[in-house]
């Protein structure tokens, strides 16, 4: 039905994470792993060590029991045997005691009234009782057996887990603090680079530069960005001057450097608007060189150009600062002068005629006396828009030219 669907534009991933969050998660993971690993190692090492101590404890208890019940076994006195075991019943971690006589018959037995908290653990850690032979002067007179229980071990594991949890908590807080610091150290320079890039892109601030950064890799990145900005700034400056040149060329005459017709039209419109707003007056002087074609033909184009340059210079000399002169055609110039009590357009026109009449030195060494016809029109007396004013000035100029010819 339809043609192949165009490739959809690359969409930006919706749920984007920040570097800070990423680092935080990463840090927490590593720390959790490390703490758990070390905690487990310590716990296992502790259990192993405690197992050793528990074994030693059982052994010592058995030795103590053997020492205590020895005379009772010598005198074959079960009551005294029980009394001899009595100190052992107060040692924690003993589940059961049994004394056998020299022929292996049980003499007495004691079982701890406290229930074993973890029988499975007890079976794993104390699968067999500790048996110590009771001797009297080198001959065996009986055996004492001691069964351990896991109560001390469980206490340790409970305490160890609690301590481990505490350590985990402390480490977690420490890690969060350190990670924050690290993130700050890393994210701050990155943000600085981002800010500069953003400023350049959004506000064309090509003069912005990344400050030297503490982290070598980021500093290199910043240096590269700075170099790139240097180039961009160079291009930007070049382009701007190029543009200004083009704009000047578009609005100015290349030979005389006076504004051209386009620039004049614009200027005239502005002046009319300003004068109408202020209620002021200005005059338009239409200046045209007489017999310019003849000069061109007689002395060559270079001479014609020289005449035009000289004309423009003399016209400008006759003007004040706020006045405006333009070359609008081959040998046609226009002047806009603001009128006040001091300035009379006719006076200005005669000054220009006089000034132009001075001899002009041509490239070939000859001198030339130029003559111009000037037509004056004033705003708003001779017209209130550009066309009317120009027409009036043009007409006045022709009238002047005719007068000159007839002379």
């Amino acid at each position, binding site marked *: 039905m339809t043609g192949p669907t165009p490739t959809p534009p690359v969409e930006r991933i919706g749920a984007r994470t920040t570097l800070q969050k990423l680092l935080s998660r990463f840090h927490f993971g590593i720390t959790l792993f490390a703490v758990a690993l070390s905690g487990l190692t310590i716990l296992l090492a502790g259990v192993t060590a405690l197992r050793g101590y528990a074994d030693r404890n059982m052994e010592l208890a058995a030795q*103590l029991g053997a*020492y*205590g019940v020895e*005379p009772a076994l*010598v005198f074959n*006195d079960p009551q005294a045997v029980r009394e001899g075991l009595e*100190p052992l019943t107060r040692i924690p971690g003993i589940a059961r005691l049994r004394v056998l006589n020299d022929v292996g018959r049980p003499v007495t037995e004691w079982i701890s009234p406290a229930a074993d908290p973890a029988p499975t653990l007890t079976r794993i850690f104390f699968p067999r009782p500790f048996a110590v032979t009771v001797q009297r002067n080198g001959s065996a007179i009986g055996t004492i057996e001691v069964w351990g229980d896991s109560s001390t071990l469980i206490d340790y594991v409970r305490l160890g887990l609690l301590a481990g949890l505490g350590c985990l908590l402390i480490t977690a807080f420490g890690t969060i603090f350190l990670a924050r610091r690290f993130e700050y150290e890393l994210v701050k320079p990155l943000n600085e680079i981002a800010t500069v890039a953003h400023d350049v892109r959004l506000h064309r601030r090509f003069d912005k530069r990344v400050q030297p950064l503490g982290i070598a890799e980021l500093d290199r990145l910043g240096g590269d960005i700075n170099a790139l900005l240097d180039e961009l700034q160079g291009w930007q400056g070049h382009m701007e001057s190029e543009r200004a040149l083009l704009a000047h060329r578009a609005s100015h005459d290349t030979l005389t450097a006076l504004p051209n017709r386009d620039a004049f039209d614009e200027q005239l419109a502005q002046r009319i608007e300003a004068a109408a707003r202020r209620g002021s007056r200005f005059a338009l002087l239409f200046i045209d060189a007489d017999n310019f074609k003849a000069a061109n033909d007689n002395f060559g184009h270079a001479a014609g150009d020289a005449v035009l340059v000289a004309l423009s210079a003399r016209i400008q000399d006759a003007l004040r600062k706020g006045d405006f002169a333009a070359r609008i055609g081959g040998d046609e110039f226009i002047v806009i002068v603001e009128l006040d009590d001091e300035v009379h357009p006719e006076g200005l026109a005669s000054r220009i005629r006089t000034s132009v009449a001075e001899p002009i030195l041509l490239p070939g060494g000859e001198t030339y006396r130029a003559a111009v016809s000037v037509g004056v029109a004033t705003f708003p007396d001779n017209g209130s828009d550009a066309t009317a004013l120009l027409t009036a000035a043009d007409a006045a100029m022709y009238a002047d030219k005719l007068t000159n010819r007839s002379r």
Partner: protein
Amino acid sequence: MLAPLFLIGALVTTPQMSVQAANQTAVEDGSGGMPRAVNRMVGGIVSYARWPTGSAATARTMCVVGAPRLTDRMAPDVPGPGSVTVRRVTTASVTPECDILFLGRMPVADRRQLIAWVRGRPVLTITDDDAACIYGAMFCLSNKAASISFSVNIDAIGRGPLRIDPRVLRIGGGEGGAS
């Protein structure tokens, strides 16, 4: 090192187990039951005594004076390497060679004389004719029903240079001793 302390501690505390007469050595049935029980008990007592000279393995001489009440076949059964040789003597012929004096039934004057002679000497005194253990012998054997027992006279032991294992004192003190 701590074991004696434990025992001393146990001495002063009341035992938590069911109370029976202390040191009740059961006597086996049959004709040889009583002599065997007595000999074992005497041997045990001897093995817990320490003389200032010699070791546990040194053979000791037991001089039997008077008529033993519990057995006439006196031959102490010492556990371990020690041994005891039995010699029957009269009150007058007791010599310092006697390491152990077994006082059987005898006149009160004789007994007093022997006890006085023992004072200060490394001699172990055992009697079977003083159930209350008040006449100065260190160990007093007695029989009750089907068992025999012994008690200790701590004053008598304290007067001599002989050393007795405190564990035995404890067993023997179960009946109240004789102090």
